[in-house]
């Protein structure tokens, strides 16, 4: 399943208000709750933090990919957030993260989960595309970039 299929303007937030890693994760989870994509916030938030405890999902080039398997969702579910000011996400290059791809998958959908994460991994290799995405000023712009990119 293409990432673009999972992302609509209702699950994109630009700019994020959170100032810390945990605040950003919670804000994105709240976005999914508000969009009706998850039934409850706390189980999802806990699953994401449990994954972060294994090692930060902050990558290079200002991108972070908080993700988790959780029975709280029945389908692959994603949200995107942009924090132009940058957030300390304990990324591997020590740089602040600006672009956040949050991905949730039910325990029995590992295949589509891996496909979506692999797509994000490919995006993470394109500094130009990431710069374009991080400079987007609206949710619609983010969706258009993902679809047309």
């Amino acid at each position: 399943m293409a990432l673009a299929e999972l992302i609509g303007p209702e699950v994109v937030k630009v700019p994020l208000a959170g100032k810390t890693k945990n605040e950003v994760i919670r804000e994105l989870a709240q976005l999914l709750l508000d969009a009706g994509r998850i039934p409850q916030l706390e189980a999802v938030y806990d699953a994401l933090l449990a994954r972060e405890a294994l090692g930060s999902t902050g990558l290079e080039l200002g991108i972070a990919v908080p993700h988790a398997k959780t029975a709280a969702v029945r389908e692959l579910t994603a949200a995107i957030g942009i924090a132009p000011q940058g957030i300390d996400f304990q990324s591997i290059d020590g740089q602040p993260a600006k672009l956040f791809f949050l991905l949730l998958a039910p325990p029995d959908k590992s295949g589509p989960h891996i496909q979506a994460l692999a797509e994000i991994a490919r995006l993470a290799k394109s500094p130009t595309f990431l710069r374009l995405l991080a400079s987007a000023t609206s949710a619609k712009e983010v969706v258009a970039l993902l679809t047309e990119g």
Partner: protein
Amino acid sequence: MDGPIRRILVYVDGTEGSITAAQYAICLAHHYHAELAALYVVNTRALGDLVKARIFVKAEQEEYQRDLEQDSQRYLNHVRSLARKKGLAIETASTSGSVHQEIKNYVIQNHVDLLVMGELSSVRSRRDELYDDAERSMRSVPCAVLIVKDEERVSALYDALA
């Protein structure tokens, strides 16, 4: 079995589209009296890429690989059951590696003359065309490829099969 379609392979990846493709492949195999096989590929290539990209930690890679191996058995069992209900024999195989490469290898080694796959994602970005496993498989296999659409119609065809 001397018609245009003698050996059909359906690629099963656990999506609803691939199960629909399996139903259609069963209908085709029945109609053409063709041999039928189903393949699931544990995408260890993607798992390795995710570790390299630091999206996965090692423990996650191992956990997801186990999940995918369990998925492969579950989905192949399901497809086997779909075939048996219609009195058809089906050969199932699970391999691991790069999806398009494994499909291509299977097609060549087993003299498959029709590859049946589930519907491609409806929203495509130009960027994805280079990377999508299904599209790469379509381009790389040496046999004819059939992309199955219209789940409702296929389901009705399958149900109506004696």
